[in-house]
């Protein structure tokens, strides 16, 4: 399984000289297995990924964690959407009130976007993420609800004996009298348990978190505690706050590195991982 980060920023795209190393594009991760191409979220990072797929024919699966704009805004700029030879499967969290097509169409329609979902040139199929694990090629995918405002899932993807966990927007410490509680009572634990690579929300510093409780994101210490409890091998910090410049992100990641526990890597655009 090959994993590549195309957008690691949270909340809103934040390009500029101060974010050039970690990148300013919002959430998008490419996952390649022997027989499948999965795209995790469709933030603005998906645009550049699309430029590498101009010759692609066949199936692409886009797995949306939720439909906040920083995870969706790039989808209309993903070139394979307009390629007739592409079979596009879009997965998203179920909702009790509207199906996935209705919710996606709120963005992919005027006045917010000029092209309607039904007018994309590729063959598009939409799927609610099922409650049970499902397969995409040889990969097994689990999607489970996690703590974040609105219907939101995290994903666990296993292929070739390796496992990636992706929880880009997650506040497992919300309301917990102490964090973490036991694994059974910790949001997202089953998705992340024993993963080879965990990509996890790390939006806030410890000083910032108290002012943002309930916004659906984690402090770095919460992220660390979650990763340690889940016994993951490598932790990639993700969903960086738009106000955090490169030097500050370096400091935040450095603060976690060298502790007993998983290897910590600051999530940067372009970074790749080979899980073999």
């Amino acid at each position: 399984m090959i994993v590549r980060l195309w957008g690691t920023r949270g909340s809103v795209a934040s390009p500029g000289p101060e974010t050039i190393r970690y990148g300013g594009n919002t959430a998008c991760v490419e996952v390649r297995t022997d027989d499948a191409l999965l795209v995790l979220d469709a933030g603005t990072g998906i645009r550049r990924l699309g430029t590498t797929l101009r010759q692609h024919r066949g199936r692409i699966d886009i797995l949306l964690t939720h439909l906040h704009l920083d995870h969706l805004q790039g989808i209309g700029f993903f070139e394979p959407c307009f390629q007739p030879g592409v079979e596009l499967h879009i997965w998203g969290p179920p909702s009790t009130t509207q199906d996935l097509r209705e919710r996606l169409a709120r963005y992919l329609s005027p006045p917010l976007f000029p092209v309607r979902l039904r007018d994309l040139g590729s063959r598009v199929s939409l799927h609610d993420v099922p409650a049970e694990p499902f397969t995409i090629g040889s990969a097994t995918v689990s999607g489970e609800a996690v703590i974040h405002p609105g219907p939101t899932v995290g994903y666990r993807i296993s292929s070739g004996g390796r496992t990636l966990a992706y929880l880009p927007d997650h506040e497992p410490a919300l309301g917990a009298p102490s964090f973490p509680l036991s694994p059974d009572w910790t949001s997202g634990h089953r998705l992340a348990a024993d993963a080879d690579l965990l990509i996890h929300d790390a939006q806030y510093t410890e000083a910032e978190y108290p002012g943002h409780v309930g916004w659906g994101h984690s402090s770095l210490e919460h992220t660390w505690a979650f990763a340690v409890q889940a016994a993951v091998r490598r932790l990639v910090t993700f969903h960086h706050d738009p106000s955090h410049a490169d030097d500050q992100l370096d400091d935040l990641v450095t603060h976690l590195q060298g502790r007993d526990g998983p290897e910590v890597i600051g999530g940067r655009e372009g970074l790749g991982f080979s899980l073999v």
Partner: protein
Amino acid sequence: MSEPIERILVRHLGSRLAVPLFLVDSEGTLVFYNEAAEEVLGRRFDDAGEMSFEEWTGVFAVRNDGGQPLAIDELPLVKALRERRPAHSRFDITGLDGVMRSLEVSAFPLEGQGGAQLGAVALFWEAATP
């Protein structure tokens, strides 16, 4: 076995409330009650631990106003769980500390995405003496 997110959120909410809260899963197993409920039920949750449906419906010696044992199906939490509707009632219990208390109990079902039955929640108060 991981708890579903809805029950985790209810537990976290309950841990911060001053109103007694009692949470059961879809099988009726008691999986949590909060500190406020500990005072009414007469034992800390950490000491009592999880209880099966049969255990918690039998251990509190529930009685109606006339002092007669209350049928399990009449308990608001059981109605919420089995009939998937809110329910309210007043009755007496004998806590695990041996003290009898009169309670007002409101219960509601926990239904998740796709109609998933996730259990039920009861909120309760010590009833004012008539």
